[in-house]
């Protein structure tokens, strides 16, 4: 006789709420950890995750996924792929693993919050798989770069980065701790599962796989798309939570959670995905521009999903569209200029052909970002390498912790958005980052950016060496240098010779 189908017994396994008698319910599900919106338990029991799986199916399917991911890795390990690897692609890997590996691990702790404090048993079960998924992602993304350690000390950052105070890591931790680690189960489900995992993770884990395949890095392409297949499932924890919120008169709160989380993640992902796609990947291997991927996955698909659930397009959507044309170009410049502060070797990668591509994909690039690189190119062509290293630092945003920048050149838009709160002045990169602060000043007000720390005495004295040491440079590994040893200016030499 055939075994039962999953649907025959699935609902029984998620019918596990009971009424506590020995301890008060509010002690069992404290609102700050569970549901701060006072939505009745019966409402949460209507939670129905659209993407279902059983334990039995889970261990079987996940075993197969891993079997595939690890066998592709083994095959590539035996090949000579990493010998003579382009340093642009190596930078993608170094940046990716350093930013992602331990973040995935903390995500398993966040999923555990939903397992323990989720008011709906369905949510608790789904999040149990989510928790395991994130363990998988952390372990894959530690095991794979570990093999690269004998090639390059920078790969040690896959494990160490999150333990340092590197400026890029402070940005990552501040955002992740805000959106993921310091939220109740419900707000977290909206912020992480919906706003993050149905949106921007697609860029990093699916969009980037196209470039990886073009590079011949099938291990990486296979790994990240396999990771996203887990995310696609457990991300579905978010939409029922949003719908229950709206049904119970909490649309405004759900909207704010989505808008805050999306913007915070956007500011990070433009760096970890946008820069690789438009600069680090050699021109011949680029498929679409970051902007094109953003329009495919975010402007069209994510926004559609937001509206499908009954929320509105975020108020800052026009600002986002502008930021898509702008933010990662600025940060490519900043990261390259301050390359000794990062754990990868960012290529400038703006030779004549690359500039032509950038101008085509981002009309106006030459008049704006081009002027910035003109000065740098001129310095390099005229043996003034030292002038490519600034002696000062950029001001850092008190929300996203990223250097405050905007379009240079004719279209000059660089500006700091300031805000006074209880006698302290805060500096923000954009209107949305400032807005996020005002939604909950208590949450953010005591935090110090790395620039604040240079003036508050935490980094004392704030000499260049001390700041670099504070950031883990010269501690975990050396900092970065131009990934192509400035070969990208050769095209200009050739032009000049003609």
């Amino acid at each position: 006789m055939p075994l039962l189908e999953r649907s025959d017994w699935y609902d029984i396994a998620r019918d596990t709420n009971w009424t506590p008698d020995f301890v008060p319910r509010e002690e069992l599900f404290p609102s700050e950890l569970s549901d701060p919106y006072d939505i009745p338990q019966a409402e949460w029991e209507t939670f129905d995750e659209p993407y279902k799986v059983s334990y039995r199916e889970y261990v079987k399917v996940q075993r197969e996924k891993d079997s595939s991911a690890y066998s592709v890795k083994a095959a590539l390990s035996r090949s000579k792929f990493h010998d003579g690897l382009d340093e642009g692609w190596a930078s993608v890997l170094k940046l990716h693993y350093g930013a992602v590996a331990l973040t995935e691990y903390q995500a398993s702790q966040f999923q555990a919050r939903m397992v323990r404090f989720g008011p709906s048993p369905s949510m608790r079960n789904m999040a149990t798989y989510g928790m395991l998924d994130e363990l998988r992602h952390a372990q894959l993304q530690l095991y794979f770069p570990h093999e690269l350690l004998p090639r390059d000390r920078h790969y040690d950052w896959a494990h160490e980065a999150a333990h340092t105070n590197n400026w890029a890591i402070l940005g990552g931790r501040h955002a992740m701790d805000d959106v993921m680690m310091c939220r109740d189960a419900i707000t977290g489900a909206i912020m992480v599962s919906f706003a993050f995992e149905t949106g921007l993770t697609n860029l990093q884990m699916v969009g980037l796989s196209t470039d990886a395949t073009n590079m011949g890095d099938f291990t990486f392409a296979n790994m990240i798309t396999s990771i996203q297949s887990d995310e696609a499932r457990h991300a579905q924890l978010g939409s029922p939570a949003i719908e229950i919120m709206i049904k119970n008169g909490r649309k405004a709160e759900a909207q704010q959670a989505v808008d805050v989380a999306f913007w915070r993640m956007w500011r990070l992902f433009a760096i970890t995905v946008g820069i690789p796609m438009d600069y680090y990947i050699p021109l011949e291997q680029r498929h679409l521009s970051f902007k094109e991927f953003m329009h495919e996955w975010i402007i069209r698909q994510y926004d559609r999903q937001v509206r499908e659930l009954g929320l509105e397009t975020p108020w800052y959507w026009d600002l986002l569209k502008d930021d898509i044309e702008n933010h990662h170009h600025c940060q490519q410049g900043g990261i390259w200029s301050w390359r000794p502060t990062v754990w990868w070797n960012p290529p400038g990668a703006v030779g004549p052909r690359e500039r032509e591509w950038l101008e085509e994909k981002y009309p106006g690039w030459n008049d704006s970002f081009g002027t910035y690189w003109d000065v740098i190119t001129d310095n390099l062509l005229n043996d003034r390498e030292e002038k490519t290293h600034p002696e000062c630092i950029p001001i850092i945003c008190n929300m996203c912790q990223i250097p405050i920048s905007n379009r240079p050149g004719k279209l000059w838009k660089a500006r700091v958005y300031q805000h006074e709160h209880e006698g302290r002045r805060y500096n923000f990169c954009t209107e949305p980052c400032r807005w996020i602060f005002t939604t909950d000043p208590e949450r953010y007000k005591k935090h110090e950016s790395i620039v604040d720390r240079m003036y508050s005495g935490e980094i004392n004295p704030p000499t260049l060496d001390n700041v670099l040491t504070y950031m883990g440079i010269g501690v975990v590994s050396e900092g970065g240098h131009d990934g192509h040893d400035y070969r990208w200016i050769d095209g200009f030499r050739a032009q000049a010779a003609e």
Partner: protein
Amino acid sequence: MTDSSDFKPLKTWSHLAGQRRRPSEYEIVSTNLLWSTDKEVPWELAPGVHMNQWYLKYRDASPLKHSDWNAFRDPDEMVYRTYNIMQDGQETYVDGLLDEYNANDHDGGLNAAWIQQLAELYTPGRYLLHAAQMGSAYLVQMAPASTIVNCAMLQSADQLRWVSRIAYRTKELSLAAPEAGFVDGERGHWQGHAAWQGFRELMERTLVAYDWAEHFTALNLVAKPAIDEAFVRQLGSVARREGDGLLQQLMDAHQTDNARSRRWTKSLIGFALEIDGNKDVLGEWVTKWAPLGDAAIDAYCAALPNADSAASEAKGEVEAFRADLGLGR
């Protein structure tokens, strides 16, 4: 800054490079993964934020102390991919059991009295194990080292495994005995039947024991052993006597997961007992929680048919487990 010549390529992570032997896959992917234990303020937000206060109070200020929790190792060295390989095999075995008994119309051969016992004493167990799933997940959030977190994570998943299998059996039994109250009756039994009230009190109180180490003690030294011995082992034995070979074999399969849980529990206790003062801390918690565990066992076993010695056997086994950890009463 260090001279660049110090940065030779590595064979393993710098934090493992000091040890003599080559690190295992387990160590490479499992050790020192928490960033929230690096600094005085756990999370990169204002120190006063509720979650920072929660971690400072319930994790960092726990009376159970160790200067290097990260040195803990899971004796099974379980990683995600080996867990799935192992559990896929275990689940295939359970599928086989269910298929085989189903083919022989096992449920049709059960007597009415036993079916009633199953409805009252077996299928409501999904609430019990789900509570253990939630409690284990609390440890995932709060344990001070990733190697401890991982053990708790797989323990939480194991509970869901058996919640699912109980749900599966609940449906099967409801088809065999539509009048016995399966599917809809379990919550009433869990909340009202005398057999479950000890367990329910134990689990509700365990779930609000928010100090991470007290939670671990209540869950892994008291509640889970009580569940393992009374619900899994004693009910399994009764099933054997009642001719319910399927339940007996399911419970035997369940014990495999319990044994793994006990192995890491024993290792973690041994690790904690290296530090002066921890024995007293753990001893006090055991003294506080063990009576609740005993009461749960007593209440549950009293309801088991023809099982006069069940409670004393179960309590004896639980006590022996703790004695083996050096924490006998």
